[in-house]
């Protein structure tokens, strides 16, 4: 009998790295060991996994990877990424909080912004109560991997009754020169009756190698709190991003999240919002613009667990070239969640014959007195409208741009921070060039 010598798989390598670097990892040993065990059981998903069948994350993880993380870029390089002039800024470079580049001095009363490492060191009771309580390692291998292997990230806490009017901007930067896998992790806790605006942006600077970011953010929205959350994903060709956002909402809270995917070779968003009490309101908005061979996959879960809540979801995409966009929107209305209002809409424009759109609304409704609707459309740019614009003297290229802008504006207009809206608008214009 012939013996087959298998090359080590990425899974083996990750486990090996985990065992080797235990000392540098973050979080309690028990939590990490448990997470790693869960990852071991789940493995890297292939197209046979229902949840990953349109997005080949296994191919993304082919090849050699380095697991060390270094600081490579200067403050001057980071400066342009701080596109909000008036904001508290947190810089996470290759998965590690960089205090020197962040602007977190003179914080107002009631606002805490620091690294996860510091939050743990200082024995913050808020940190201890909420860390790794919501993203369940058993539900997804990337959650498991992040929980096992994260080294750092941001910790943000807003105390009861406090309103932070200035936005808080978390900048994730990849700057590596060798293929790397990183696992940044953030914990954001907004206490009762507090209000905040949080932006997470994902960028690459001077990177010359592939970076796989397995980023995870947990957000706790307590009673009556109001939170506006934004994700701007713009990692260019070398960026591969799996971005998990796990949100838990308490009674009468309002949470709005907005995901803008502007570039990146592969972007997979796993967004889960749990409505864990009554009279909660959740808004999930998304816009993805895909070109070339890009793959963008938005998986959202809205979990209505209690009665009298509202959720509203709007995802729009413009697909060009040979790119692939996937939208998978799951809405659970649990047995107790009577009088739920849940709306979902996914609209796509397909600009090329080679582009692919997979759209899959999934409603699982176990209560009987609910109002749910979902709609999904895929189409080309309306020829009649293009013709109308041309008949008014607007050239074909500009006519198309105008219509694409109009299409995108429904999502862009949900941005409440003016400077951010302008920034995103400009980015979109560049994409349409």
């Amino acid at each position, binding site marked *: 009998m012939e013996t087959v010598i298998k090359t080590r798989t990425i899974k083996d390598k990750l486990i090996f790295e985990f065992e080797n670097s235990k000392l540098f990892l973050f979080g309690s040993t028990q939590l990490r060991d448990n997470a790693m065990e869960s990852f071991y059981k789940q493995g890297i998903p292939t197209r046979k996994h229902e949840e990953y069948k349109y997005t080949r994350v296994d191919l993304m993880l082919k090849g050699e990877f380095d697991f060390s993380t270094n600081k490579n870029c200067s403050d001057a390089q980071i400066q342009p990424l701080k596109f909000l002039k008036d904001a508290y800024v947190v810089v996470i470079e290759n998965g590690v909080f960089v205090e020197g580049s962040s602007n977190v001095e003179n914080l107002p009363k009631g606002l805490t912004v620091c690294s996860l490492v510091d939050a743990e060191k200082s024995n913050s009771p808020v940190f201890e109560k909420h860390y790794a309580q919501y993203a369940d390692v058993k539900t997804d291998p990337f959650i498991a991997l992040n929980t096992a292997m994260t080294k750092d990230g941001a910790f943000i806490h807003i105390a009861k009754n406090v309103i932070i009017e200035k936005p808080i901007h978390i900048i994730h930067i990849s700057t590596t020169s060798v293929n790397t896998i990183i696992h940044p992790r953030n914990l954001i806790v907004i206490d009762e009756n507090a209000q905040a605006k949080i932006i997470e942006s994902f960028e690459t600077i001077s990177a010359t190698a592939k970076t796989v970011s397995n980023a995870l953010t947990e957000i706790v929205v307590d009673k009556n709190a109001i939170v506006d959350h934004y994700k701007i994903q713009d990692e260019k060709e070398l960026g591969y991003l799996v971005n998990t956002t796990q949100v838990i909402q308490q009674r009468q809270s309002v949470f709005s999240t907005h995901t803008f995917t502007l570039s990146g070779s592969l972007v997979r968003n796993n967004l889960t919002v749990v409505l864990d009490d009554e009279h909660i309101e959740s808004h999930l908005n998304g816009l993805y613009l895909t070109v070339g061979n890009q793959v963008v996959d938005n998986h959202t879960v809205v979990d209505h667990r209690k009665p009298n809540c509202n959720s509203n979801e709007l995802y729009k995409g413009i697909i060009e070239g040979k790119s692939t966009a996937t939208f998978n929107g799951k809405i659970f209305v649990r047995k107790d969640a009577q009088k739920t209002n849940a709306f979902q809409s996914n609209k796509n424009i397909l600009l090329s014959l080679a582009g692919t759109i997979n759209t899959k609304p999934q409603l699982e409704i176990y209560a009987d007195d609910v109002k*749910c609707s979902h709609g*999904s*459309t895929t189409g080309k740019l309306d020829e009649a409208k293009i013709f109308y614009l041309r008949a008014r003297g607007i050239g074909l290229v500009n006519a198309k741009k105008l219509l694409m802008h109009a299409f995108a504006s429904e999502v862009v207009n949900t941005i409440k921070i003016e400077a951010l809206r302008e920034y995103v608008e400009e980015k979109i214009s560049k994409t349409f060039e």
Partner: protein
Amino acid sequence: MNEVIEEKISAEYKYGFVTDIDADNAPKGLNEDIIRFISAKKNEPEWMLVYRLEAFRHWLTMEEPDWAHVSYQKPDFQEIIYYSAPKPKKVLKSLDEVDPELLKTFQKLGISILEQERLSGVESRVAIDVIVDSVSVKTTFKETLAEKGIIFCSFGEAIQEHPELVQKYMSSVVPSSDNFFAALNSAVFTDGSFCYIPKGVRCPMELSTYFRIEAAGTGQFERTLIIAEEGSQVSYLEGCTAPMRDENQLHAAVVELVAHKNAQIKYSTVQNWYPGDKEGKGGVFNFVTKRGICLEENAKISWTQVETGSAITWKYPSVILKGDNSIGEFYSVAVTNNYQQADTGTKMIHIGKNTKSTIISKGISAGFSNNSYRGLVRIAKGAENARNFSQCDSLLMGDQCGAHTFPYIEIKNNTAVVEHEATTSKIGEDQLFYCKQRGIDNEKAIGLIVNGYCKDVLSQLPMEFAVEAQKLLEVSLEGSVG
């Protein structure tokens, strides 16, 4: 092939068929003799009898469908009288002889069948064909229409006067073997309306048929055929009522619409058959096959229906979009209260290129009723750039009723744009209290809510019907909440 069948049937005809030509009613039950009786009674040509017998023989091989979301005691088809002409004294020579109750109903509908009155009035005119228990009793405005070359008459008359048109188009959209009830109708239908709009003519008035079931134990099986030639336009209204009876009455109609190049047909129905009493006793079983075909390019067929009556409704007005750029529309309000059951919707079959369809369905369920939307959107392989928009809304009043939505979407061409939206909402104590807190009492509030909810559909109805339909909705929901 046809000749062989014809021969066989005519051969049989020679044996044992005795017609009591003087009888007003056929005896109860259904067999080939009854069909011969009906055909003879109506003095039909041989090809009609052949057609009927063929349909009947096919019907015998079929089973009553049970896929619809309705439950009922299946009718005993041998207990039904298939032909009932109105009593001799009711054969009307002039409108003065019309049953005053009937006239009253018309007044209620806001429609006058008295030509003179209409002519002197400023309101838009409506030509009406009145059908009582399967027999056409009066068609108004025939002459005015004839001047434009429009044929509007009873189906029976069309068979006699325009056999070439009937032969060409009858069953060209709904084959007599299409389904159980369509086959039954093809075998036993006694009358109905026929309408032909010649090339380039815009029908100057609304055409209308008013159906009424009068006699007890009778089935009503009418047939409507509308043909719109190239570039023509017609708007057609259909109204239905029946008196209260304890037993269920069967109504199984077939409607066929044919729209040629650039032609437009708008077909509106206000159906108010007797729905049965509060305990669910009696009421009409309404099993209807309605289908139109946009035969050539740029044709348009639009169905609008307001369904408040019948114990059971089983009805899917459909459009086959065969011609390129053709358009199909379906606007529906279906109200069920007490123990009524409705399973209704549409089919939009996209075959031609650039074909468009719109479906707006509004279901209202109250009491213990069940209301289902069942709709099919099919985009065939060659239907480049087809578009469909569907919106199916359900409104529940109280918590003993049910609303169900069964959309079927079949897409064989990837240039299609298909949009589907569905909502279910509930009117209960909370909404009514909110209105009260703003000074609006229950009765007013329900009127506001129902009319607001249905306005997208009601606005599609011709003016004559819109007001009546609105009242009808309020009446059928009286006392359903609070």
